[in-house]
């Protein structure tokens, strides 16, 4: 689907502002958009002069009063620098306490997984069918609880972290390097995968990110590389590593390359036990154990390989580094990753010239993600693309809650998880390795839109369960969405199309007004 046909016509917006001014006590209606300059530095000015609401709405999970304030204080260049190179994420103490109390925060991965393994073995060893069933259910429930912790943490950061570009890139890379929570015991590994493989590199170096992902037990299990051994080749990870993670499907690799990369990957697996796999004498020097990750030389194909036309020397686990170096540095990877970034941030069909500039920076900087994004954010195409990107369900839900409650922290993300489920985009819920679609066609079906309007009404009408903590004795805290606020009157109102403004005028209560605003076409795009 394309863009709004009635996107922010400046004159129309002004006409409507004037008409509505008496009722809505609108601020000045002067247009703040400057003509489109061509040179990069001047473009920075184009962003600097853009409507702060629209700009912040595109650089964050969704504009809120405090996010726009943060931007106004810093100005475009400083804001961009802080977002691309965040020092540390400071969350408010209440939110941080929620995260600090989680099992996934307190218990390191190895300990957590081994504890879960013990629980599973104990359940399986039960003689009585009924007891066994109960124990197995308890094991499954504990896994699901760990998954829910990871989802909760992700949402809390999306809602409240000041480092909004970093949080979005964490989601982006989780989706790019997708794993599914339903496979074996992955639910126990998600928290660590996100926290230690993805998040530290979300704005960092692509090669380091790739290395962290490719040796994380969650990915190795998800794509079956723990089954990949010399003489019993499993190509699954090798194929997706090139098709989905680096080169892209038309990136210039062959079935032969898939087979060769699969050979390189043999032996890179997962060991859930505390005991290292026993090795023959000649292999002992090659064995590598890092947490749950295990390079088992007994399963590795030590022969030389040829990948993308160049040899890879058989040298144990280091051959994987050689292969990842080659994939990460490949021009196809630069193009593929740059285009995907542009699709995520800009439009469903990003301009090839811009993607080319990004890819050039990606290559020259040896995969510096922040530098590549900087090219995108400073490009004239970025300044001119407000309102052109349809929000996926994750962004719709998070942006609506941010707009309605800003920094007033929700006490229960359960309703948000439910909404994401209903719209088919739960965190860690994508079954296939390609990740969720980032284009409108996947998310703007009739059922999807009808569901969004129901969610708009739920959020617009009251606290929607967001302020009722879980647990039997939990007291619901009073809360009411604050949408008709200074941010709206100063910045947002003038971005609304006449049809939207007319609809808002027909609201008969503040709740209904908020519902219409959250259900508006402008709320579906950024």
């Amino acid at each position: 689907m394309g863009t709004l046909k009635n996107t922010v016509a400046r004159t129309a917006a002004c006409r409507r502002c004037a008409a509505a001014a008496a009722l809505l006590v609108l601020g000045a209606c002067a247009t703040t958009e400057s003509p489109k300059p061509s040179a990069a530095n001047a473009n920075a000015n184009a962003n600097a002069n853009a409507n702060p609401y629209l700009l912040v709405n595109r650089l964050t999970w969704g504009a809120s009063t405090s996010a726009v304030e943060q931007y106004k204080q810093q100005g475009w260049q400083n804001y961009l620098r802080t977002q691309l190179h965040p020092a540390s994420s400071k969350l408010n103490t209440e939110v941080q306490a929620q995260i600090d109390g989680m099992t996934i925060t307190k218990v390191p991965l190895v300990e957590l997984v081994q504890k879960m393994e013990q629980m599973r073995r104990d359940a399986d060893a039960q003689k009585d069918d009924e007891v066994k069933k109960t124990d197995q259910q308890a094991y499954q429930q504990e896994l699901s609880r760990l998954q829910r912790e990871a989802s909760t943490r992700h949402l809390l950061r999306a809602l409240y972290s000041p480092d909004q570009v970093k949080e979005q890139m964490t989601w982006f890379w989780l989706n790019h390097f997708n794993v599914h929570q339903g496979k074996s015991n992955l639910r126990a590994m998600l928290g660590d995968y996100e926290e230690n493989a993805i998040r530290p590199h979300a704005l960092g170096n692509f090669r380091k990110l790739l290395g962290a992902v490719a040796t994380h037990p969650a990915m190795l299990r998800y794509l079956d590389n723990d089954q990949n051994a010399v003489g019993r080749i499993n190509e699954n990870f090798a194929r997706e590593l090139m098709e989905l993670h680096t080169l892209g499907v038309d990136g210039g690799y062959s079935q032969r390359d898939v087979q060769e990369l699969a050979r390189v990957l043999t032996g890179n697996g997962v060991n859930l036990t505390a005991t290292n796999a026993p090795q023959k004498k000649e292999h002992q020097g090659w064995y590598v154990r890092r947490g749950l990750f295990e390079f088992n030389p007994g399963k590795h194909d030590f022969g030389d390989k040829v990948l993308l036309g160049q040899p890879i020397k058989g040298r144990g686990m280091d051959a994987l580094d050689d292969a990842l170096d080659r994939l990460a540095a490949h021009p196809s990877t630069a193009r593929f990753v740059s285009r995907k970034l542009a699709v995520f941030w800009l439009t469903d069909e990003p301009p090839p010239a811009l993607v080319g500039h990004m890819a050039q920076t990606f290559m020259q900087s040896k995969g510096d993600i922040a530098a590549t994004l900087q090219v995108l954010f400073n490009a004239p195409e970025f300044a001119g693309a407000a309102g052109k990107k349809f929000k996926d369900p994750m962004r719709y839900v998070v942006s609506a809650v941010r707009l309605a409650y800003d920094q007033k922290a929700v006490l229960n993300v359960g309703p948000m998880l439910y909404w994401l489920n209903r719209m088919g985009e739960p965190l860690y819920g994508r079954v296939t390795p390609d990740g969720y679609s980032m284009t409108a066609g996947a998310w703007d079906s009739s059922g999807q839109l009808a569901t969004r309007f129901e969610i708009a009404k739920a959020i617009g009408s009251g606290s929607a369960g967001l302020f009722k903590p879980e647990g039997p004795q939990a007291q619901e805290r009073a809360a009411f969405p604050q949408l008709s606020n200074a941010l709206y009157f100063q910045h947002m109102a003038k971005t609304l199309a006449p049809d939207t403004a007319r609809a808002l005028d027909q609201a008969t209560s503040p709740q209904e007004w908020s519902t219409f605003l959250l259900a508006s076409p402008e709320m579906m795009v950024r």
Partner: protein
Amino acid sequence: MQRRHFLAATATLPLAWGSAQLQAAGSGSARLLFVFLRGGYDAASLLVPVSSSFYYESRPDIALAKPSADLASAVSLNADWGLHPALRESLYPLYQRGELAWVPFFGTDDVSRSHFETQDSMEMGQALDGHKDFGSGFLNRLAAVVAGASPMAFTDQLSTIFQGSARVPNTALKSLNKPQVDGRQSDIIASMYRNTAWAQPVREGFAVRNDVMRELASEMDAASRNAVSAKGFELEARRIGKLMKDNYNIGFVDVGGWDTHVGQGAATGYLASRLDELGRGLAALPQELGAAWRDTTVVVVSEFGRTFRQNGNRGTDHGHGSVMWVMGGGVRGGRIAGEQVAVEKATLFQDRDFPVLNEYRAVLGGLMQRQFGLSPAQLAVVFPGAKGKDLGLI
């Protein structure tokens, strides 16, 4: 009987394109409901190989007894096969009327035995080797090639099977919440979209919701007259039947809870109650569809069958070959269709599972050619690289 013999004789003939066209001539109202049993149901408990002593050896605790006067025994279908007694009252009458057939040894060649991988590869309906288009499911491709297709996913999310280029609305019917956005608010919301690219889907979304709520209103009427109200899948199936009768011709719904690793039971127990619920739901479809049942085909599949031998927990583990269900007013049923072998140790796949002799893309392709009069070119879109295998089911 005469008709069945004739059909059995022609069943394995390749489908001639001409006959499909003839079939298509009157099939403007053709409907297909696709039911996916997620979790890999135990097909050997549905369609019981009653003539196989190996079956009784392999399942000392969970086998269904050979047909007898005992109502807990399998219902005799033919010399080789019996039906789970939980379906004696709901679906066996349809089988006797010739509106229901089963295809054993059905499934995919994917042997990962992983639920999610097999479900997904089946729903994509693409060749197993080579590049896959993850965002494209075969029901979506069917909706794209059938003229006048009006697809509907009766699920919260658009499952892989319905993802793709054709626009498919979705609405779950399992538990209906009364919509909170009222009629006036809907009109006002729609007015915001009238000059946008989403004008049509927004109107469509509200229209579907209104259809659903009208059906719900009649349910509530019935409830207020103290009629016994349906529950679980039967309730869902009745809602689906009502909607497909008037509004939709390609439907999809999934039913979970079939992964019976532990204590699955036999004539009674967990699996029996799941089959009972499913059977009552499927049996409600002809009632709800009325005259439209004549043009409706319902297909029920699962991602794989389960191990032929019971495991150490009186359950079964992930297996391979399954059994497909085909029912409908125009179905040539009352028989067990497709390629078959005697059920014994030597014929098991990898000495553990039912083999797959009726590959799903071929069988479903043949069925869809009949149901919708697809041309070979259209079939190649729905199941690229597959040859339709016509079992004469319609």
